[in-house]
Every structure is written in structure tokens, then in C-alpha cells.
């Protein structure tokens, strides 16, 4: 039995401990905001926070999350008002939107660890999250806005 918290709620899981967090939150908890994009840690669509750090939900298992706090896009803020979410809307970042939960989770963890990143740090910090629609220019602007308020 593995105990963890997800979006502040205590959970216990007695299934396969190797189950990736991605499929645990999607299939077991009914939180489909975290997306499957590659299953190999190459695209970042499944990014969640594990004790505040961005991890790929397809690579981290439920066992890895034992005793820890998982936050998914659904739990980032109660009403979607996290500064990163607000910046994403102000900059009209999304096109299809599929990768954006992962992008937002990556960006929010990046800013939590480094509130005033340089442009290069933003590029490096976001390079693990693919956007096939090509919203990168606006992603960078949104991270910058969330960081500086401008």
C-alpha cells in the first residue's frame, strides 16, 4: 500500500507500484488534465509536481511518489489564477492546447525554484516540453511575464 497526497487529498494505492504517475492520476483518480504525449520522458506533456519539483508523470511511478505530495494541473490553483496560468492567458499562448498543462506545470516549478530566470534559463528550463503547434515564442513571453509581472 502506497500513501501519497494528490492535489492536497490523501490517497492510498494498492495496485502495481510501478504504475506511472501519469496513468495513476488519469485512470485511477480521474484527473485527465495531465496528458500522455510520448511515454518516454521526451515531451513533457505529462509534467506534474512532486514535492514542488517538475517531474515527468510517465517516468515517475506511484512508488516514487510514496509519502510525497503530487500536484497536477487541476491542483495548481483553486481557480486557475496562478500567475503562470494568468500569463498564459494574457499572452494567448495555446493553439491546440494539448501540451499546455505540461508547459504550465514546468514553468511554475521553474519559477518556484528560480523566480527571476534569465531568458537563457527560461529556454533551458522549458526545452523538455515539446509544443508541436509551435507556441514557443509566446511560452517564453508568458514565463517572462509571470516572472517579472511585465
Amino acid at each position, binding site marked *: 500500500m502506497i500513501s501519497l497526497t494528490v492535489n492536497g487529498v490523501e490517497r492510498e494505492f494498492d495496485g502495481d507500484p510501478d504504475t506511472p504517475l501519469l496513468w495513476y492520476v488519469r485512470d485511477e483518480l480521474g484527473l485527465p488534465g495531465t496528458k500522455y504525449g510520448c511515454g518516454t520522458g*521526451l515531451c513533457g506533456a505529462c509534467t506534474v509536481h512532486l514535492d514542488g519539483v517538475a517531474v515527468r508523470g510517465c517516468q515517475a511511478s506511484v512508488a516514487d511518489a510514496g509519502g510525497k505530495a503530487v500536484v497536477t494541473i487541476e491542483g495548481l490553483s483553486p481557480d*486557475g489564477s496562478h500567475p503562470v496560468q494568468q500569463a498564459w492567458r494574457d499572452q494567448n499562448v495555446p493553439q491546440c492546447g494539448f501540451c499546455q498543462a505540461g508547459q504550465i506545470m514546468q514553468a511554475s516549478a521553474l519559477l518556484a525554484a528560480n523566480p527571476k530566470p534569465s531568458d537563457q534559463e527560461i529556454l533551458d528550463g522549458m526545452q523538455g516540453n515539446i509544443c508541436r503547434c509551435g507556441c514557443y515564442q509566446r511560452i517564453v513571453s508568458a514565463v517572462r511575464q509571470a516572472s517579472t509581472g511585465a
Partner: protein
Amino acid sequence: MLHYLNQHFSPSPLPASGQAIIQNVSRRAFLKGTTGLVVALQLMPFGTAEAFPAYPHGGQSMPNGVVNDPHVFVSIDADGTVTIVAHRSEMGTGSRTSLPMIIADEMEANWDRVKIVQAEGDEKKYGNQDTDGSRSQRHHIQPAREIGAAVRHMLEDAAAREWGVSMDDVQAIGHEVVHNSLGRRLGYGHLAKAAMELPTPARDALRFKDEREFRYIGKGKIQITDLHDITTGKAVYGADVRLPGMKVAVIARPPVAGGKVKALDSTAAMAIKGVERIEQLDSTIPPAKFAPQGGVAVIAANTWAAIQGRDALKIEWDDGPHAGFSTPAYRKELEASAGAPGKVVRDQGDAEGALTGAARVFTRSYYQPHMAHAPMEPPAALANVVGGKAEIWAPAQSPYAVRIDIAEALGMKEEDVTVHVTLLGGGFGRKSKGDFATEAAVLSRRMGAPVLVQWTREDDIRHSFYHTTSVEKIDIGLDAANKPVAWRHRSAAPSFLSTFAPDEGHKHPIEIGMGLADMPFDIPNVRCEDCKALAHTRVGWYRAVSNIPRAFAVQSIVAELAHELGKDQKDFLLEMIGSPRIVDLKASGMPEDLWNYGEPYEEFPNDTGRLRNVVELAAAKAGWGKTLPEGEGLGIAVHRSFVSYVAAVVRARVDKDGTVRVPEVHVAIDCGFVANPERVRSQIQGACVFGMTAAMYSGITFENGAVQESNFHDYQMVRADNFPEVVHTHIVPHGFETHATGVGEPGVPPFLPALTNAVFNATGKRVRDLPIGDQLKA
């Protein structure tokens, strides 16, 4: 595009649809009929009907045509909430927002009181829903205005009746109808019932807003309707719908197209906890259209178990007739084919004679491999087939095609199949093909339970409907004064026709009209040839389709020849285009059925003045000719596709280790009237990233018939650490009289040659084989 293909193969052409209620009104006839109205309407706040003359467009000839019945698209609640149906699929272009926005503006609805609902796949009700070909604006902006104007008319009529006054004395403004002189007003909610019970007004009774009165159209201030849901994880995509008792299936498909299962051992798969059943699926005999490829499905209680189960299957495959397909050998075949005469698809003057008599012939050949779309959302669909009915949730570009395919696969009547359209996590042409939804439907019926089919990324890369691969060989004959007098373009590329009909190795008119036969240069002798190429995989279409390799070849050779002749590449490009003119199809020896993206040529002609203009605009904005640091270069390219004109100037920097960077791009786009400039800019930014991915990395390699790439490590994407950093989009302004044309796709084709031309100008290295990959590495 799908529907055009279906039409092509129907024994008799599909009727243009009795449902299409827009009449093919010529501009002249329309204006003639409105003379009296114009005078009357001078008193009206919304200008005159003349402000919006109807024009014929390709939407009317699409299967099931265009529906502009306001009762189909708009309903108003007693509380004033206006519900507008979005009947096009949303895959990132913004059409789910932009078309309802046009309706709302024309009907004077306040956007914050508009609710958008997504239509099911039902073309008999909504008209054509096939969301590809960059058509949503150009085919639907006009009907959207008609729908909005009709609803506004009905609301005004209802208010006038209630007050017992003439309609001339009332007008709709901001979600209410006001009486011009009495100061009385009635909200849309109050009027809704009476208004919506009125008959649909005739088109010639409608008044349209003057462009100066638009509240939302053309402003770029309305944000996409799903923005909040996307940023909070609430947006629903193909794999996000949950039904009680649903199962998840992951499928092992034949590694080689046309293959089938020879032997199966599922013992290990069944031993995995959560795996419930193994089901073999029938393989199909090509041409299979969009039918599933067959294989073995593992059905489980959850996705993780299904993936593990699929990976534990032991399958021996019969690879079928394409087991010998290999990319290097096939490239040689294409080169041989493009090196010999093909089927002539355009013949102007005497190209052969002019080449023979030329002072010199400049020849270049360009190559592009197959490519996979790789939308961020791999294919996924949920089906619930129970009690003789099928209900599907799918990220489908063409939901009505999915409905028909599933009805056929299950032997059901069309009306017993319902297709709900979720958001698409990217489409790019992949999700025009509903094989993944049919898989879910077949499995759900067998399981007697809802089944979600989830494709893994490996499935997506290895079982796509691939962008064609091509060799494009061009010969330019020059006279003694180095003036181009002959142009011969031979294109060898397998056709997407092979997916629909026995493969004859030749192209569909759609593919011929995408940058081959429609080449606009002012050269007296032109011959274009379609060289034979048989397909060995499922060939589909990918954002911008054949325009990508054609623009790459045509725009590369122009730059190469300019360099050879010591001329400025931009000036030489303009010289090749020649004077501003409407290209005369007949005089140019173009085919009578020249593909003009489905649009009537008279209304949407190939206008070299507009082509020249975007070249000059992009060049001026980019500072063409300026001095750049060592290792940097500007490259220019232009291409007309989807009846839009796009020029790109790319600034490339090539690092000492061969890494290509793109600090800046200037794109000039002439796509006629623009309803949502903000989404045009986002599409152009995206097209540059998409184009850079195609140019830098995209190549699908076949060996023994099977795709070798599998995921984002060997089928790479442009990422945030190296992308076109700043894309400036310059939209050529037009009024509504200049018809809206394509936006989603036409930004892609010019980017690739603009990039490789820039790389040449930065390094002296000419890229003729895509992708660039490691070619520039030391």
C-alpha cells in the same frame, strides 16, 4: 480534402447537396437586385447590403455544401444566453472561436453572453465539416455573416411586431433591440422565443454591417473560447472522456503496411494484472482508405496494463507485399523516375525545344523523405456500441467521415452512429483519417463495453498516413543573355491516391496543383511532368501537403540560379515572377482541371501582383540587403498555396559546430480579409516552428517495409532551446471585398526554402536533401 477524394472515386459525382441553401449568386446579379434597397438603407446604421456582396466560393461545391440556416446554428435562451454551434473541428487554428465570433458580431450579440457548443458529425444538418485544406475561414466567413444577419433581422422583426412599429424604426445593438426614437428597448432573452419562431429571412432581405461597425471581426481581441479550460486542465481531448465500465485498448499493428498476423502467443500478455482480453483485428487489403490496419488488441482495465500487455505480445507477422520497401533504394527509384519523361501535366510553348536550343541548362534536384505528423495528442478515441447504437468521442478532423466509416464497419445505419468531436491535440492532417475511431468502435462492440483506444507515440510514428516523399528535378534553360527561356519540372512522388484506389503511380489533380503545374513564373516555355512512383506505405496528407517539397525545390533553384548569375536573390525572384498580372490558365498551358484549392478561378485567381507584394513586404520589413555578422544569412522564399500568398525572410545563424539557429523571421501573408488577426499571427508563428522541424529533423525511414523511427528521440521536434525566436507577421490589409483565403497551412511551404537559402547565404553550403540533420556539422 477527404471529400474531394471520395468524390473522385464515387461512381457518379456526389450531388452538391440539396441541403446547401446558399445560392450561387453572382456579384452582378446580386447588386442589380439590391438597387432599391441601397437607397432605403442609407438611413440604416448597419450600412447596406452592398457592403457585403455575395460571391461564389468552393464551400458550395463541397459534399453536403454549406448550410447557413440560423435555426441550425443559433439559439437564444430566455435569459439572453446565445448558443452558437461550432461545426468545424478545433485543432489549434481557432476556428471554434472565430466562426462563432463572426456570427456574434453580425447579430450584435455580446461575446460574454455567447456559449459555444460543438456540433456532432452530421453534414446533412450542418453542411460540410471536413476540417482541413485551410478552409474554415474561406468557406464559412460568408455563411457566418449571413447567419448572424438573419438572426439580427429576426430579433428586430420580433421587437417591431411587439411594439407594433416598422422594422425601419428599430435596430439591434449590444444584445438588445432599441427603438430609434422612443428610447424603448428589449433584450435578446425577452425576444428570443418570438424571434426564433419567425421564418428564416431571405438573403436579399438581410442587411449587413458595414466593416466600420464590426465589434469583434478584424480586431483580434477575442480570446479562444477554450483558453481557461486549457490552462486549468479541464479541456477535453480524445482520451479524456470517462464512461462507467470503460476498458482501454492498446493495439499491436502490422509493422509493414498491408501485413497481417501469422502467429500469436498472448500468454505473457494475459498474465499481466489488469489485462482482460486479447482480440485479433482483421487486416485490410489495400487500398484500405481509412480502415484500421488490423493486428492484435490488448484490452485492459486501465491504460498502463494495456500498454504492458501489448508490449508482452509475441507476434509473428506476415509482412505482405511491401516487405522489401527501403528508403535508400526507393530514393534511387524516384531519382530515376524524375530523370526521365513523365506524364505531362502542363505544357506551355515548347519547353523541350527551348531546352535543346538553350545556351545553357541549369539543373538541380531536391529530395524530401516521408514525414509523420506527430500531433502532440497521439490518436485516441472512445466508443460505446450498445443496443444497436454507436456513440463515439474522437478528436476527428472530419467527424462525418468517421461516422460513415464506422457505420460501414459495423454494418449500422448512419443515424445509429453518433460522433462527438472533442478538442484535437493537433491534427495536421493525421486526424482526417479515422482509423483509430473505427478500431474503438469495433472493439467496443466485441467487448459489449465502452472501449478507449489509446495509441502510443510509437504507434503514431509507425502507423501514420505519411506525407509523400519526393524527388523534384528542375531544368531551367537560359538564353545567351542568361535569361530563363525554358522551365521543366519533373516530380516523382507517391500519391495519396494509392490509399483510395489501385495504385497507378500517378498523382491526383490536387497534388499537381500544389506548386507543380501552377508555377507562376513568367517563362515562355514550361513543361511540368508527373513521374511515376508507386506507394509502399499509407500515403496521406500533412499540413500544406505537396506544397512543401514543391516550394522547397522551386524556391531553392531560383536562389541557386540567382547566385550562379551573380544576381540578388530577391530581385531575381521578382524577375522570375514577372510583371503583376492574373495568370492566364489557358495561355500558360495549365490543365483545364487545375486544382485551385476548390475555389472558382475567376474569384480566386493566381495574381502575381499579390505574390510580388508579399515578397517586397517581407524583404523590406526584414531589411533585405543589410550586412549581417559572420555566420549569419538572410534567405527569402514565396509560395502561393490554399489561395493565399506568403513570403518568408528567414535570418539564420549557423554556429561553428553546424547548429542552425533562427533569430528572426519576417513573414508577409496576403490571405484576403482577416476576421481574427491574432490567430493568423499564432498560425504563422506555428508554421515557422513546424517548418523548422520539417527542415531540420523530419524524415521517416523504411527498412524491410517497417518504419525505423519510433519516438521523439529519433523523430525530433524543434524545442524551446532552438526555435524561430521572433516571428514578425505582416498581414496585407484588405476589406471584406477581398475574399478570405487559407491561413493554417500556407505559412509552412515558404519557410523551408527560406531557411535553406539563409543557410547557404550564411555558410555557402547548399541543402538539397531534407532534412538538414547533420549535413552542416563539421
